[in-house]
């Protein structure tokens, strides 16, 4: 059973009186443990695809099966639960809550899931230690470097042990060396079994992935993983 099965996905945005087909007749299958880069110029629909995969957006038509379950028909409440437990997000601009410390930011998903504070503290401490942030636990985001911020964000994305990580230009706000570290970290997680989907317009970054999906005008133009 594939982790992700998209079939005949349509996503139409209405801008004024014109309709924009952000995604059109899209089929995509991703197996568990895969490392996929979604590439393409801006406006090609890659971000819309990522939002769809992350259940932040709903398609106008077509079905999305996640781990064999049709998630397009779930209620908002159930979708939130799936996001909480199966999906981790890594954003270009990190999206850390500025008033919370690194430890509190990492604990946020567990807090939302209602996990007991004692267990939270234990898991956060371990995660921060794993990502080399143990001495930064009490620092707020504005006291951290860009690389540290992204590592905090990755720690947060993985703290609930999701099945897949969705990364939207994860190195976009980082210099090359730091970006390299972050990618190595993500790829390490992928090696540990987590499905990794990276959206990027950077061909070098995309080239690192085992499978590349080229998007163009809302459809797949090229998919190295097609059998």
């Amino acid at each position: 059973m594939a982790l992700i099965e998209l079939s005949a996905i349509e996503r139409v945005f209405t801008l004024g009186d014109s309709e924009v087909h952000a995604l059109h007749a899209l089929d995509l299958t991703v197996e568990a443990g895969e490392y996929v880069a979604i590439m393409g110029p801006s406006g090609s629909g890659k971000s819309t695809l990522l939002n769809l995969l992350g259940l932040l957006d709903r398609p106008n038509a077509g079905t999305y099966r996640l781990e064999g379950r049709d998630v397009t028909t779930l209620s908002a409440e159930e979708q939130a639960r799936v996001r909480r437990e199966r999906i981790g997000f890594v954003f270009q601009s990190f999206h850390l809550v500025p008033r919370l410390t690194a430890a509190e930011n990492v604990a946020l998903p567990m807090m939302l899931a209602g996990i007991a504070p004692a267990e939270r503290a234990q898991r956060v401490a371990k995660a921060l230690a794993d990502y080399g942030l143990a001495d930064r636990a009490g620092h707020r985001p504005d006291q951290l470097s860009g690389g540290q911020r992204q590592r905090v964000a990755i720690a947060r994305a993985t703290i609930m042990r999701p099945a897949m990580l969705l990364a939207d230009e994860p190195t976009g706000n980082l210099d090359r060396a730091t970006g390299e570290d972050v990618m190595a970290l993500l790829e390490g997680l992928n090696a540990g079994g987590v499905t990794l989907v990276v959206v990027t317009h950077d061909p070098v970054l995309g080239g690192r992935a085992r499978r590349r999906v080229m998007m163009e005008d809302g459809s797949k133009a090229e998919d190295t993983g097609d059998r």
Partner: protein
Amino acid sequence: MRSADVLRFAAGSATGYPLRTFLMVLAMSIGVAAVVMLTALGDGARRYVVNEFSSLGSNLVIVLPGRSETGGFNPANAITGTPRDLTVDDAQAIARAPSVLRAAALTIGTSEASYGGKLRDVTVVGTTADYFLIRGLTVAQGRILPAGDTGLSSSVAILGAKVREELFGAEPAVGRMIRVGDRRYRVIGVLAQSGQGLGMNADEVIVLPVSAAQAMFNTNTLFRILVEAKGRDSILAAKDEAAAIIKARHDNEEDVTVITQDAVLATFDRILGVLTYGVAGIAGISLAVAGILVMNVMLVAVTQRTGEIGLMKALGAPGHTIRNAFLTEAALLSAAGAVLGYLIGEGGALALRLMFPALPAYPPAWAVIAALATALGTGLLFGVMPANRAARMDPVQALAKR
């Protein structure tokens, strides 16, 4: 999400923007403080007046000469002449009525009192021993007027505390003769210090037997007859009996006005009570304004934290969790404002009491509860709309911001 976490998260959001939080708490606290203080003032005034009336005596019925056509007290009574005078005999007749415990004739005038070359103006109260019992007046030294004695023979006087002090200083007063008007009286008692009584300061009077006072002022009419009913239940009966007795004695004409203290009290109580509600309502407007401010501030907070809301949604927070977090924040801010406002209001009431010791300016319990409840209520009510807006926010657009 656990309730404790919701609470901590909301408190964190509130303290994360200190200026905004301070301003909102300030606005809310001003509203609550205004309600607490103004109602303390209004209720203090009400209690002051009620106390003053109560200090006249209990179960009191007052007979005043002259008939007011519309009922109630008419200022014209004080100026115009009356067809038939109220007399000491009227008072004695009323005292024998079944519902009446005692009745005291009362005549009042001003005169000069002198002792040892010192002279001062005094209010002369001519009355009987029953007056002391009805008004609950006690003597600090000596004794009160002899009971049942209304004759001219007894030339005795009882001094108010201040009159005694000014005429006698450190000297003992009881037993000395003083001159009031053109007659001499023996001081048989000094009133205990009583402070302000409505319209008349009992410390600055000289009490004489009623007939002595009438002789001094060359009149046989009375200013009032004070009647004490046998109990609370017999006040109305005493009122009717007094009116009937006077009518029978005055050739079947109702030429007096009989009022009960309760009726006067109730009227003042009602007027000042309504006044208190009025000022509470005016102060309540500031609470409503504070509520709108809560909404405005929360709307700004939602806009300010759009990215955070998007993130929370991406992390799997359902809409109701986000709504709860914002509602809790609004409630916390309102509660902080309410508590702070309550303390400020109590402080203001305390300052009022220190400045005007006569005024019992305590905020009534209903006002305090209403103010706190309204503050919390408006905070929550006006927090609902911003919280819903946050909960409904589209995560994709929310994340795109920032």
